[in-house]
């Protein structure tokens, strides 16, 4: 009895291990890896012992021809047509070895048994996995391009708003940064920055081109593939240069109805700054004023406001999913409902999503039809300004409430607390901002199997989103000296629609050892967006203070609206050729026409070719410890026309008005405001990729390594132009820059077991080198903030003044001269910063700035580990980034004394009595010691973070049976619990959307610590 239980637990553990780690497509084939062996007691015998048994495949079918050997004597036999074998061994303590081509070798100890059954597992489940590659599928082992399969089970363990955020660290070559703002989208960048417009990849959801944004429920995902190189993404042509993420949602499986529920409930905790309290603040503030000779402000020492306590709280995140699904040979259904709710760690922020999905399909004869549709409503409660900055800008001597101010909230005061920080509690009350989207996303497809080897598929995709934005501003102030505004309501409603029509023909046939698949197709996609908006001022208010924010109320109406349209028309073709499972060839061509490009340049062609050689199948290959080895190479061209709708078209801005005449009436004006380049063409990415896939050491270790060289030409970008052109409204888009990215990616997974513990450990390593080859308009560089982007160097390098310690004495000041004897900083005093006069002209100017660091990491590392023992399973994901230099925006505010903000607790500015410090003397109202454009604020951005750790307990089925459940699991998990870093800001992992200032940490919402409890069951 006990043994049986043990055996079952072991089986469950492997199932979980398989489901969670090995394959996202695994619910379908999660039984692949299990190995059941029954242990029966046999009679003990001293002499020769006979063992009998049956060998089956993973589906329980008998296998003929399996070699069964005694390891000690190497005597052996083979199974018959029914899978039976019988072998005589010299003693009962030996081990039987079962081997069969394409399967993992099994070694089972005899331990005195006389009946041993064996189930053979396919050699590598991940290799026989089917991968969606766009307009078709391929076996993973046949891939010739760089395609990563995301371990969906790991992804779904994490509590996250968006798919992108949950993918971090799980795939090599994909850079992802999120943040803790409810409903915020993560930034995702596949294989580096390839243009200056956007790094957003193309998403394909069940064949529909649509973004998997915060409206999309990650729990519905069955599989995710990331197409990283040109040959893989080529089938998506002019939109694929940033890579493609293909998402397939779950389908019903053959069998009776299955009901599943999963729920996760989490607490979120924000990291906090260590800021000065009232006494420390006052001491430092007085010091700064005294040093500057300014009369001290009359600080209110009785007030002790901890603004972080006021603005931050413990957040919660809830995620509930219920689904039912089932199917037969002729059809299947899957229906799921989802609720996701996030109350932010910042007051008055939150996000809610309600979702429903229905995926069905059916087949009759040669005809199949199906649909996938999801309906979601997502609503974000947003907050103006940035509370993570506000809590720093506000002083501890300011009360939260102050009846003397309009609106009743405390903020800066000219005589008592001079700061222009905004009171987040006031904003939370006086402003309401919501963003709501109702979205329908889905597709309807039909397939005709015209001949055995030829099928036609029609795919109709549709996405629509009704967007609703509301803003209410009540009367009252939240910052010092604020301009008067009455109560204002602002509302807009918009509709997004995208329709996709696709026709494809697929021919697939084997001719002896030759296998050929040909796909030809045509697609048409039309996107439209239209918005109307309206504003009213002086809103009606009732006696209890409530404002009527509907647009019927109020006065001074303003209204407007606009429309956007784009069309993409494409033809595509792909040839997949395989010879003897050894030589693989893929060739793709796509022709795209885009309405966004100028009339003479609307069309572009994107060819690519890739090949692979399964060297391990060659006769001469005799490396025993390598099970499978495949070499790959690809080359091709992709496009990008990720620009505005009519960027090639010079338009007239008709919104100017002037007051004129004795009566000051209004007259309209019209003129061209934004310049354009009329001959825009598609930008092209040419990439060469080399890859190796290997499995070795009896399938315990699998490795994929990739190296790529990618060049983007004619990059479409709003390159800054001379301001004397008078251009405004955004720099005109131009085919300007050229960029090069090279990178190396390595993924390795080790799977094995030690005793009763099954475990795996995987690592993803990504390195990337970004280099600008040309910038267009003949320019050599672009300056943005504290960065420079120069030809021959990576984008956005830090370009600042170098500091060189602190002057300790007047002598040091006077002796700090250039070679001509000119005193470089004649106005400095002891305690001031010494800057390097890099150009030697005897003064500190902008010309002394130099490149001092790179915002690009040298490498990023994901470590994913799991182990299971009996009913317990432990999973851990670590993610780290190393070698980037980042700008600590927080320190650049709290470590300066020129402007009043709160100060870093424990900061020690230089004084004659305490000169041993790296903080210069405090000095109010002078940028002398507080310049932002110096290397003082640059720090190492290295970090290693425990993104996820979770322990799952599977409730024994024997217990569940009584209540009719087939499975149940409880999971306790934590996210971002440990971060190892020397970075002095809140979070070294952040997202700056400015392409040139990617390393600037500017009070971004940090990643939050999260503690989750999850429950999952099915019946």
């Amino acid at each position: 009895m006990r043994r049986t239980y043990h055996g079952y637990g072991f089986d469950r553990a492997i199932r979980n291990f398989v489901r969670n780690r090995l394959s996202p497509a695994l619910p379908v084939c999660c039984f692949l890896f299990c190995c059941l062996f029954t242990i029966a007691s046999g009679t003990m015998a001293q002499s020769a012992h006979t063992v009998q048994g049956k060998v089956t495949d993973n589906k329980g079918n008998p296998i003929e021809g399996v070699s069964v050997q005694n390891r000690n004597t190497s005597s052996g036999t083979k199974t018959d047509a029914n899978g039976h074998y019988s072998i005589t061994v010299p003693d009962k303590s030996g081990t039987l070895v079962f081997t069969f081509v394409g399967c993992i070798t099994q070694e089972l100890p005899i331990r005195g048994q006389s009946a041993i059954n064996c189930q053979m597992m396919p050699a590598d489940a991940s290799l026989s996995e089917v991968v969606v590659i766009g307009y078709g599928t391929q076996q993973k082992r046949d891939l010739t391009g760089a395609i990563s399969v995301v371990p969906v089970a790991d992804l779904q363990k994490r509590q996250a708003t968006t798919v992108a955020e949950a993918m971090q660290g799980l795939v090599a070559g994909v850079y992802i940064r999120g943040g803790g703002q409810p409903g915020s989208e993560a930034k995702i960048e596949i294989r580096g920055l390839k243009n200056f417009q956007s790094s957003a990849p193309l998403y394909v959801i069940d064949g529909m081109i649509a973004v998997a944004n915060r409206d999309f429920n990650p729990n519905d995902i069955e599989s995710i593939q990331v197409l990283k190189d040109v040959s893989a993404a080529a089938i998506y042509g002019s939109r694929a240069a940033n890579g493609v993420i293909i998402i397939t949602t779950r389908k019903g499986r053959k069998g009776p109805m299955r009901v599943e529920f999963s729920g996760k409930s989490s607490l979120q905790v924000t990291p906090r700054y260590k800021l000065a309290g009232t006494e420390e603040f006052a001491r430092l503030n007085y010091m700064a004023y005294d040093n500057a000779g300014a009369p001290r402000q009359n600080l209110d020492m009785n007030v002790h406001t901890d603004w972080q306590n006021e603005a931050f709280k413990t957040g919660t995140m809830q995620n509930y999913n219920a689904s039912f699904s089932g199917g037969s040979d002729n059809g299947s259904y899957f229906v799921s409902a989802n609720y996701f709710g996030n109350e932010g760690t910042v007051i008055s922020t939150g996000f809610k999503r309600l979702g429903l999905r229905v995926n069905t399909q059916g087949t009759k004869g040669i005809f199949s039809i199906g649909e996938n549709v999801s309906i979601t409503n997502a609503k974000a409660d947003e907050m103006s300004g940035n509370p993570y900055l506000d809590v720093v800008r506000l002083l501890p001597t300011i009360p939260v409430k102050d009846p003397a101010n309009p609106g009743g909230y405390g903020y800066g005061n000219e005589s008592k607390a001079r700061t222009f920080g905004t009171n987040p509690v006031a904003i939370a009350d006086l402003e309401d901002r919501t963003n709501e989207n109702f979205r329908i996303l889905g597709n309807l497809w039909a397939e005709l199997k015209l001949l055995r080897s030829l099928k036609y598929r029609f795919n109709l995709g549709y996405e629509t989103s009704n967007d609703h934005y509301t803003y209410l501003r009540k009367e009252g102030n939240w910052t010092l000296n604020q301009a008067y505004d009455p109560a204002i309501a602002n509302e807009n409603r918009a509709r997004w629609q995208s329709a996709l029509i696709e026709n494809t023909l697929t021919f697939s046939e084997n001719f002896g050892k030759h296998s050929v698949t040909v796909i030809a197709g045509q697609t048409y996609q039309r996107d439209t967006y239209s918005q109307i908006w309206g504003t009213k001022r002086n809103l009606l208010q009732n006696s209890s203070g409530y404002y009527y924010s509907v647009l019927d109320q109020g006065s001074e109406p303003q209204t407007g609206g606009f429309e956007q349209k784009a069309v993409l028309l494409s033809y595509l073709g792909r040839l997949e050729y395989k010879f003897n499972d050894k030589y693989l060839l893929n060739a793709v061509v796509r022709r795209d026409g885009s309405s966004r490009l100028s009339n003479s340049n609307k069309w572009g062609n994107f060819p690519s070719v890739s090949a692979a050689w399964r060297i391990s199948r060659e006769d001469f290959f005799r490396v025993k410890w390598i099970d499978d080895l495949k070499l790959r190479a690809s080359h091709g061209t992709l496009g990008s026309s990720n620009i505005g709708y009519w960027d090639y078209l010079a338009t007239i801005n008709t919104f100017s008005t002037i007051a004129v005449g004795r009566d000051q009436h209004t007259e309209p004006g019209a003129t061209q405001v934004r310049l354009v380049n009329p001959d825009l063409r598609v930008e092209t990415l040419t990439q060469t990729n080399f890859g190796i896939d290997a499995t070795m050491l009896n399938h315990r270790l699998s490795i994929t390594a990739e190296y790529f060289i990618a060049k983007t030409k004619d990059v479409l970008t709003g390159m800054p132009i001379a301001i004397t052109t008078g251009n405004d409204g955004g720099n005109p888009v131009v085919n300007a820059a050229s960029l090069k990215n090279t990178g190396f990616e390595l993924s390795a997974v080790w799977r094995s077991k030690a005793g009763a513990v099954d475990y795996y450990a995987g690592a993803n390593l990504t390195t990337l080198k970004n280099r600008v080859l040309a910038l267009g308009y003949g320019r050599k560089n672009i300056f943005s903030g504290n960065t420079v982007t120069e030809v021959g160097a990576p984008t956005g390098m830090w370009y600042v003044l170098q500091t060189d310690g602190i002057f300790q004495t007047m002598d040091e000041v006077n002796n700090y001269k250039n070679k001509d004897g000119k005193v470089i900083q004649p106005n400095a005093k002891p305690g001031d910063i010494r800057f390097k006069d890099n150009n030697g002209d005897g003064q500190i100017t902008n010309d002394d700035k130099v490149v001092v660091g790179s915002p690009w990491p040298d490498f990023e590392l994901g470590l994913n580990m799991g182990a299971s023992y009996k009913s317990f399973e432990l999973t851990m994901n670590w993610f780290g980034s190393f070698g980037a230099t980042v700008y600590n925006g927080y320190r650049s505010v709290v470590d300066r004394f020129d402007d009043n903000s709160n100060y870093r607790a424990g900061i020690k500015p230089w004084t004659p009595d305490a000169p041993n410090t790296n903080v210069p003397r405090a000095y109010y109202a002078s940028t002398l010691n507080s310049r932002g454009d110096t290397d003082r604020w640059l720090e190492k951005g290295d970090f290693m973070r425990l993104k996820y750790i979770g322990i799952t307990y599977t409730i024994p089925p024997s217990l569940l049976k009584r209540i009719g459940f087939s499975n149940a699991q409880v999971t306790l998990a934590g996210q971002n619990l440990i971060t190892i870093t020397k970075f002095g800001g809140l979070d070294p992992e952040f997202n700056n959307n400015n392409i040139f200032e990617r390393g600037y940490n500017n009070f971004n919402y940090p990643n939050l610590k999260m503690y989750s409890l999850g429950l999952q069951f099915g019946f």
Partner: protein
Amino acid sequence: MKKLFYIILPVAITFIVFPSCSKSLLEVDNPNTLTEDQFWKSETDAAKGINAAYAMFYKPGGWARWMYFRLDLTSDEGFSKSPWVELGDWTRFQYINYNFWEGNVNTWRDTYKAIFRCNQVLKHVPDIKFADATKKDQIIAQAKFLRGLHYYYAAILWENIPLVLEPSKPDDLPKQNTLAEVWAQVEKDFTEASAVLPVQWDDPSVGRATKGAAMAFLGRTYMQQRKWQEAKTALDYFFTGPGAGKYELTTNYRDNFLHTTENNKESVFEIQFSDANKGGDGDDPNQNMGTHRPQFFAPRGIGWSDGQARYWMVNEFKKEKTLANTLDPRLRYTLFYPALEGDFGDKVYGRSWEWGSDEAWFRKYQRDYYRNNEDYFCQNNFRMVRYADVLLMYAEVLNELNQTGNAVPYVNAVRTRVNMAPLATAHPEALVSKDAFRDRLKMERELELCGESVRWADLKRWGDLDTQAGVDKVAQRDPDFNNFKVGKHIRLPIPQIEVLNNTNLKQNAQY
């Protein structure tokens, strides 16, 4: 047969139907607005084009906001105690980051943005057919006036700037011009504009540039170059030319600073501000037509208080009483100062004095006369040139041409309006010599025009900032001038990003 149909159908859809209509499918018209080639066809288009050029007065880089920081606060009349240190630094010659948007780049950008609009009118309107050729010429003349005006102030601020005279293309990298070349272009624009512009507009067009506006600016342009004879010729317009008798001083000095008495008989050129729209500063619908000056110059606790007046002016006003032995009424309407309530009974936005005992704030153009707060939608017209200024300019020109005696009545006219005694009585020493008269005139201009954005050009024209001795004297009134480096800070640095992006540009000397 059926199978064949199944094969033909998709093939037909795929390869026949779509290609045949692919061209029209991809040509998606912009439903939002006109394209450039559909515009500049009619008289209405031309009228809208010139209006869009006027609308540039409402932008923050220009006369809605930052220009007052450059011209009033940088001069010895004003200064900044803004807690936004960098903003303050740009009013006290501490220019560190030449790309500081608010202090430099925004104004540079909006200047050229306005010029681009003028150039579009000048390029396209000549080709448009008008029923009445005069109308067409007047539109072109207004564009020349506005272009001249923007180049005039750019010459005051940066001096060595590129002259852009054609509509721009994205890859334009214009050549740099010398200050003399810039002045020559400004003279040309004002001269050509003045030849066509009407002496007065009919009521619906009041506020547009007149011949007098062009002549006054032409006079200023010559004066800045100390071309006194040419300046006199230009300004003669007001006294012996067609403009004679068309302008008068208002009886009430304050009428020049209220929104209720705009475009009065003293007005030569005003920026027509309005609070009709409550939108933003960009080129979007409902864009703001108001000035932000009052919100930025209002005292602490009321507005941003980024700019305030130097206290020495209070003393200067109090040095001389009116003929009725009262304080100069111009003090009352020029400044908020500690004794305002005591001297004249006026509170500051309903408050008694709560600021420093040595502090003062600009009162001109502030709206304390009817409200207790400020916002970004101030409708009060900015009087860019008023007749009192023309009188004092004319007096200065005559004095420089050694006609000191002839100059005196023009100064007296300005003094008489506020009941101050004639110069001969009040300041006989000023009539002794040309230099003495000039010294007095400097103060007369200060008392009359304080806070009206003429002081910086005055200091430059007078040469007060050309020598260390001169700067030291100014620094006694405004210690910010202790930072002033002769030969350097007389002009702003060109935005660094522009110097880097346009290899034809050289940064101004010593920057």
